[in-house]
């Protein structure tokens, strides 16, 4: 039941965002609102077991959602900017020293691993290639491995980020 309500609510919210500006009730017309409710119920019935597969509703906590909204334009965007300046530098100078390293994530849930892998792909010099599902370790293709790092078995995930501690943010949001 909760899964159905969450899925239908999310679908209705997305419909409202896409049709904003269509009429006079708030920003919406009556026909769009009615159609939105019907489609949201239909979507909730079909997709509830896909959106809420893990049966955990941690992200319904408003504090976590607020943190997520701060995380994306804040610390994440800082690292994204740094990543792009780094890639721009390497495209021009071709100073690369690539390799695949094992990174210890320290996260336990699927959502946390998912967010960390996505954040890693868009942050400096790194691209997630594989996941060890037993230990939740990530395999990262790093475009410029530091001297001596290729001899170490495991690298901590916090070492990948220079300016902001992204794994700690993700732990607060997802776990």
């Amino acid at each position, binding site marked *: 039941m909760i899964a159905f309500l969450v899925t239908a609510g999310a679908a209705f919210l997305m419909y409202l*965002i896409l049709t904003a500006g269509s009429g006079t009730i708030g920003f919406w017309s009556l026909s769009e609102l009615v159609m939105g409710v019907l489609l949201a119920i239909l979507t909730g019935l079909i997709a509830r077991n896909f959106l809420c597969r893990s049966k955990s509703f941690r992200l319904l906590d408003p504090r976590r959602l607020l943190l997520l909204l701060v995380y994306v334009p804040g610390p994440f965007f800082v690292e994204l900017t740094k990543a792009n300046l780094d890639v721009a530098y*390497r495209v021009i100078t071709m100073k*690369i020293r690539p390799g*695949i390293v094992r990174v210890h994530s320290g996260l336990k849930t699927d959502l946390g691993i998912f967010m960390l892998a996505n954040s890693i*792909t868009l942050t400096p010099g790194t691209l997630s290639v594989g996941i060890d599902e037993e230990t939740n370790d990530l395999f990262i293709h790093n475009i410029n491995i530091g001297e001596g790092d290729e001899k170490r078995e495991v690298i901590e995930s916090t070492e990948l980020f220079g300016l902001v501690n992204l794994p700690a943010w993700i732990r607060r949001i997802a776990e």
Partner: protein
Amino acid sequence: MTAVEILIYACLAIGVVFNTLGVIGLLRFPDLYTRMHATTKATTFGSIFTSLAVIVFGLSMFFSQNDSQYLTLAIHAFLAAACLAFTNAVSAHAIARAAHRSGIKPMLAVVDRLEEAKL
């Protein structure tokens, strides 16, 4: 030129520069994995800024003319940028993993822990 126009042109310039760097990286880097670095990061960042230019344009027109079609334009551009950032990262991971599983070795690599782990 007004301040808003300068902001729009600045966003467009940043976006186009980084998209161009992504394309140059795609041509210059030696193998699939390093090319994925250039294409995912640079094109995501560049496209976010071109979308930001559309958002700024839409919002400025909405507040000056009070016509709701510009609000729709801004919101749709924002959603497109968000979906692009999300799917770029996921598809980059999918392509890199598929390539490694089908036996493409990273060129010039100093270490390959995934090969040793045999997953």
